[in-house]
């Protein structure tokens, strides 16, 4: 998520392919190092929706379709 832009695709790839996975891991770290938070939107079998905050690449479910990065929260 970016001000003035909305959603921006940062990287995409197949985690089953080692080359893609290395690139995705590097990008994931870069975003977190830049101070962003990362979340994976989930849909449960009963239709309930929620997000899962992830702090490392290994936290991301293998079947996750996307990870959303957004600016970290600050007291308003």
């Amino acid at each position, binding site marked *: *998520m*970016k*001000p*003035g*832009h*909305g*959603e921006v695709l940062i990287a995409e790839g197949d985690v089953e392919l080692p080359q893609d996975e290395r690139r995705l891991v590097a990008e994931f770290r870069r975003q977190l190092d830049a*101070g962003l*938070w990362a*979340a994976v*939107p989930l*849909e449960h079998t009963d*239709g309930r*929706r*929620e*997000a*899962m*905050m992830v702090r490392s690449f290994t936290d991301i479910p293998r079947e996750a379709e996307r990870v*959303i990065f*957004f*600016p*970290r*929260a*600050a*007291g*308003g």
Partner: protein
Amino acid sequence: MVFALLISALVALALLSDILAPRVSEQWARHRARRRIVSEPMLDPGRERRAEQTARELLRSCVGEEDWAMYRELGFIRVWGSQSNVRSGGVEYAYLIYPHRPIIAYAPQTGRLIGEYCVEFPDDTRPYGSSRLPDSDDVLAKWMALTGDERRLLATANMHMPGRQVDASQVARDLWRLSRWEQARMREIAATLDATSGQPGS
């Protein structure tokens, strides 16, 4: 004679300099500004609108149809609190998420307002000169942070008494609108079920 005129001219020039100097300086600054290459991003009136449109699509894809309909029709999303009351079997509290306004905590059983959680998601890199996310991105960021790690978000937020930034009477009206909206939605679902099962509606 010439010397006297020269002295008079110098005195007059000195007296006028107080008046002329600022104007000359201003004209020079304007001249320089016109020639300077402007590195600021060009103003694009449609950018914010396009960003919001993109953000709405992303929000819709994450929160699901019901919450999306709630946001589209009411302007906010209700998120249930994660800690339920064992004795009543119900949810003790819930939140209303508005774009770029504090998160409102309230008791769904009574409608009593609990507090305001003031939180922002500023992008310090300020792309396009603004640190503010589009409205729907702000809602989605709150939704993800609340459903993903409620405690962490609330620990970050500044908590205030109800009514500090969001008018309590407006929240009460929104809760009333929400209850009406949910009733109408239930009726629609019931009617659809009746129609699909072939039974006449009551």
